[in-house]
């Protein structure tokens, strides 16, 4: 089966091409093509994963280009991480496409939406299958394009347009880092292939400082894609896209690409402790930073977006503290519960046509399915015992503890408290209390939207059991198999029992506090912080990061552009117009010579001949 794995990304590409060519005629039937093709991809991925349990890594490459003595290769590789990612991506994509069939109903550009989804899925699947950095970079950029198209899907809305541009440009900044990193790596090791690079790194071809630099540059690429501080601000804005897109791209797949990149290049990071520190600190800081913003946001999707940023920070923190398994594990569980949360939020938005949680409330009894589904996701992300988020977050805390980085450990604990708090704030604001909505008739979403959520809810509950302290560390052992030396050989992080107890207590405390404030209303909402307080305003304005960028980077670039535009207009333009004017003058003189007088032509030809003969006579036939 694994030798046919190249078909997995081809199916969504077929969707894209078919819908692009004949989407106008198919209209809403286009969804079936998308769903069937993605289903095929998903089944294939599942088969590949099953087979990967038994067989070793499969890798096939063909020579694509040879430049000098260097062979550039193209192909695909199925190792543990790839196989897992393939299943996650194709599954979430499939579920999102099912969901969109209900959510996007009546949308004019329905088939275009499915075409874009197909394109994105193709790029993402190609990204995780890439056997070398060059191919990964191609698909990395394609994923960026897919994200751009989908965020800007409602292109007639100014905010959506700006958000799409912002997302593209900010991730681009990261991509430059990645590209430079790849080039330096190629320069140092002479190869794009993962295996050869890691071998070269371990044999010490590159100096330590060089390794740190390269690892950090590659990490910058991951920072851009995964919305880590300081390149995080595009992700909340990307919520202007349709909600299923947010679930697919900005929760489960594309933003996880950065984490995937760090996980793939993990041996490189392991070789440089400074780079690991950078990854861990960036992750830890982003986690608490984004969580604190999520505390006060009032747009349901924005809260979820900041929550995503925060959880991605968690994953980076795990990777940075050598918790390879913890990071990948959380990547998987997060993909399920965050996609569930986004889809459930979409279902709420679908029902009452607003994203402002101040205008929701009292929906528990009205949305009989969405409510419990949302609750499942909320419990999972809050780290409620026995749900998937509990196990993966535990693993991360253990990894941070084991690494001996107690400051980051404390940050992670505080963040998990904040996570529980803001998620339940969201839940209680939406589902309990008085109805503050304008919409009187609240209708539950159709079953085509509920089915994907049910699947995700099921996975959000059980997916944690692949790696638990009690029933074995199946995932960790499998991921490590054959890679012990490369990945640090830690299939499970051990720590004292009190960590797990404390994690549970912390998340329960967060839930309880949110319950007291937003559900029971025992405590006033101003109990923690006044609405017009300085601190509140800083949080509400997301630490003024966008404003800071606007006034520093924005104005600097604008000034530079103005300067360059004058250079362009006067210096470059001056040279160009001088050339054109002189050529034009020459042409005018030439055209004057053409009189139509055949005798004058003859005269000129004769004179020319005479001159040639004179030259011939003087020089004797040789021009010296």
């Amino acid at each position, binding site marked *: 089966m694994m030798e046919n794995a190249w078909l997995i990304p081809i199916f969504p590409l077929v969707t894209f091409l078919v819908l692009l060519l004949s989407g106008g005629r198919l209209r809403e039937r286009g969804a079936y093509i998308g769903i069937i093709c993605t289903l095929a991809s998903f089944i294939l991925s599942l088969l590949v994963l099953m087979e990967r349990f038994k067989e070793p890594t499969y890798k096939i490459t063909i020579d694509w280009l040879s430049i000098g003595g260097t062979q550039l290769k193209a192909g695909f590789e199925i190792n543990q991480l790839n196989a897992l990612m393939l299943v996650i991506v194709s599954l979430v994509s499939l579920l999102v496409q099912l969901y969109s069939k209900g959510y996007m109903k009546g949308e004019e550009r329905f088939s275009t939406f499915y075409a874009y989804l197909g394109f994105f899925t193709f790029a993402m699947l190609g990204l995780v299958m890439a056997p070398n950095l060059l191919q990964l970079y191609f698909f990395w950029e394609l994923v960026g394009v897919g994200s751009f198209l989908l965020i800007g899907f409602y292109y007639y809305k100014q905010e959506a347009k700006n958000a799409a541009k912002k997302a593209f440009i900010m991730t681009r900044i990261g991509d430059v880092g990645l590209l430079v990193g790849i080039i330096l790596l190629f320069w140092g090791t002479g190869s794009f292939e993962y295996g050869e690079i890691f071998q070269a790194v371990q044999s010490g071809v590159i100096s330590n400082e060089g390794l740190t630099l390269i690892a950090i540059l590659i990490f910058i690429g991951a920072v851009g894609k995964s919305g880590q501080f300081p390149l995080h601000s595009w992700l909340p804005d990307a919520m202007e896209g349709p909600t299923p897109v947010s679930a697919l791209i900005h929760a489960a797949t594309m933003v996880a690409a950065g984490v995937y990149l760090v996980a793939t290049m993990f041996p490189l990071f392991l070789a440089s402790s400074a780079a690991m520190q950078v990854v861990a600190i960036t992750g830890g800081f982003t986690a608490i930073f984004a969580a604190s913003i999520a505390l006060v946001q009032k747009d349901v999707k924005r809260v979820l977006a900041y929550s995503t940023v925060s959880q991605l920070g968690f994953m980076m923190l795990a990777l940075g503290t050598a918790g390879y398994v913890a990071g990948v594990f959380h990547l998987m569980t997060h993909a399920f519960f965050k996609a569930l949360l986004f889809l459930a939020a979409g279902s709420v938005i679908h029902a009452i046509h607003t994203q402002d949680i101040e205008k929701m409330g009292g929906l528990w009894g009205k949305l009989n399915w969405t409510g419990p589904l949302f609750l499942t996701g909320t419990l999972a992300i809050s780290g409620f015992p026995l749900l998937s988020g509990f196990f993966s977050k535990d693993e991360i805390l253990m990894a941070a503890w084991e690494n001996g980085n107690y400051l980051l450990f404390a940050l992670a604990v505080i963040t998990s408290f904040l996570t529980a708090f803001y998620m339940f704030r969201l839940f209680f604001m939406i589902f309990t209390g008085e109805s503050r909505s304008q919409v009187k008739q609240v209708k539950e979403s159709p079953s085509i939207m509920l089915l994907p959520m049910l699947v995700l809810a099921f996975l959000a509950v059980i997916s944690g059991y692949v790696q638990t302290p009690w029933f074995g560390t199946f995932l960790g052992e499998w991921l490590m198999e054959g890679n012990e030396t490369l990945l640090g050989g830690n299939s499970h992080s051990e720590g004292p029992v009190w960590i797990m107890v404390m994690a549970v207590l912390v998340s329960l405390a967060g839930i309880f506090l949110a319950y007291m404030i937003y559900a029971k209303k025992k405590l006033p909402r101003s109990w923690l912080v006044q609405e017009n307080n300085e601190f509140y305003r800083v949080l509400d304005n997301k630490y003024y990061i966008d404003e800071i960028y606007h006034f520093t980077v924005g104005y600097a670039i604008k000034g530079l552009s103005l300067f360059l535009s004058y250079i362009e207009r006067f210096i470059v333009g001056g040279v160009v117009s001088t050339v054109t004017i002189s050529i034009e003058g020459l042409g005018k003189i030439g055209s004057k010579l053409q*009189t*139509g*007088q*055949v*005798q004058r032509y003859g*005269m000129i030809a*004769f004179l020319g001949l005479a001159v040639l003969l004179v030259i011939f006579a003087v020089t004797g036939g040789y021009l010296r």
Partner: protein
Amino acid sequence: MTGVPLSAYLVLALVLFCIGLYGALTKRNAVIVLISIELMLNAANINLVAFSKLGVTPSITGQVFSLFTITIAAAEAAVGLAILMSLYRNRKTVNVDEMDIMKH
């Protein structure tokens, strides 16, 4: 055989050619221009025949060549005169200066 040297033929041909060139470049009447061109062609023929008889390696080739030239000159004159006739019918003139429509 006779005492006429090669240079005499060549000078004759040169004189004829120059007269023809002068006529072709300066005369305004298209008929005169055509006649001048014939003159130049015949100057070339004299050269060919002279070299064929008195050249370094005399051979019949030069005379054969000049026969071809005469044939082609006749054809050219016929075509030229035909063009001239139709031009005259259309424009009522044989003045070369006025024939500049090919400029456009």
